[in-house]
């Protein structure tokens, strides 16, 4: 018992142990609610909700009416859960520093490559998020909704997506890191 509690308090687990936990969560999603995990779809639900409130005419299209209906969906609840899960995880290891928590631009590796400026990190984070969300739309899901959820059902789509992630990610890392790759 003490061992388990001490392990929960650790900042970083073995990826194998954390992976088993995620695998069980994936099974539980299907068993308890006949649904899959996902994250990128939730942002589309919220974007549609805001869009329809602000500019209903612009957002009155097939996508926001039928494909990804706006509103607080099960997917949105899942992402809210992920938010609190991250919070609880950090709290158990004493690394929760709300508002003062180190952003990526205080990561030693990030600093050596991009520098410590916050505006630069925020700009890249913003641009990256746009790219990620758009790409997830084309692919049919993100790391959780397609790679994990599709993979556990043995959907070929998931493995094509994972292969694509490396085909896109490796040259990007090479380009950013150059000699320091």
């Amino acid at each position: 018992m003490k061992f388990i509690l001490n392990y929960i308090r650790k900042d970083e687990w073995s990826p194998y142990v954390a992976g088993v936990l995620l695998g069980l969560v994936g099974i539980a999603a299907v068993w308890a609610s006949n649904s899959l995990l996902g994250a990128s779809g939730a942002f589309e639900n919220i974007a549609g909700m805001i869009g329809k409130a602000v500019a209903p005419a612009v957002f009155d299209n097939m996508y926001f009416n039928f494909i990804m209906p706006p509103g607080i969906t099960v997917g949105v609840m899942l992402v809210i859960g992920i938010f609190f899960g991250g919070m609880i995880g950090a709290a158990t290891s004493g690394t929760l520093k709300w508002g003062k928590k180190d952003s990526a631009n205080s990561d030693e590796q990030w600093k050596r490559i991009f520098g410590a400026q916050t505006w630069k990190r925020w700009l890249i984070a913003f641009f990256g998020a746009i790219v990620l969300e758009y790409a997830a739309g084309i692919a049919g899901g993100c790391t959780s909704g397609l790679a994990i959820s599709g993979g556990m059902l043995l959907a070929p789509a998931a493995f094509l997506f994972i292969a694509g992630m490396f085909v896109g990610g490796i040259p990007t890392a090479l380009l950013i890191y150059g000699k320091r790759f």
Partner: protein
Amino acid sequence: MTNFIIALALGVFFGFSLNKAGLTKYNKIINVYRFTDMTVLKFMMTALVVSMSGLYALRGLGLITFPNVPATYIVGNLVGGIIFGFGMALSGYCPGTAAAGAGEGKLDYLIPGLFGFLVGAVIYGLTYDKVFPAISAIANYGNTTMPDLWNLSPFLTILTFALMSLLLFYLIDRVGWQRKGSEQ
């Protein structure tokens, strides 16, 4: 209502596992693309082995049915993945890890991250009919799985995947198939 509570609970455990695996850190994400830290791959493949074994076993026992399987349309899955990999290597997160990192109090994940995902969602939703129908029509196999598509035994498919994963873990952890980058 019940589904909302279940989703919230699932999310909490999901986010917790992302935090404990260290995937809410910039260097964990970027370094998998440099092959200097394969945590992301170990985490994902372990999760896949566990969940695919469990799901196919439970379905075999008649305890569950599968939800809608994500659709396979080769060019779209692949091109989407390539652009996604670019975004991930650049930003050091993905939608799920950004949500978990935001919960830890990382403001760059919470503010420009959330804002960017919403902007990306708007751009996608407004260009959807010009992009998606065309790309998803190419080599579309529908909501299929590998055992169904190629008439494979699910058991042997999963066994093969599990053995491949174990071999890969062995090569990474014991044989030293992990690079030592000049930038750690």
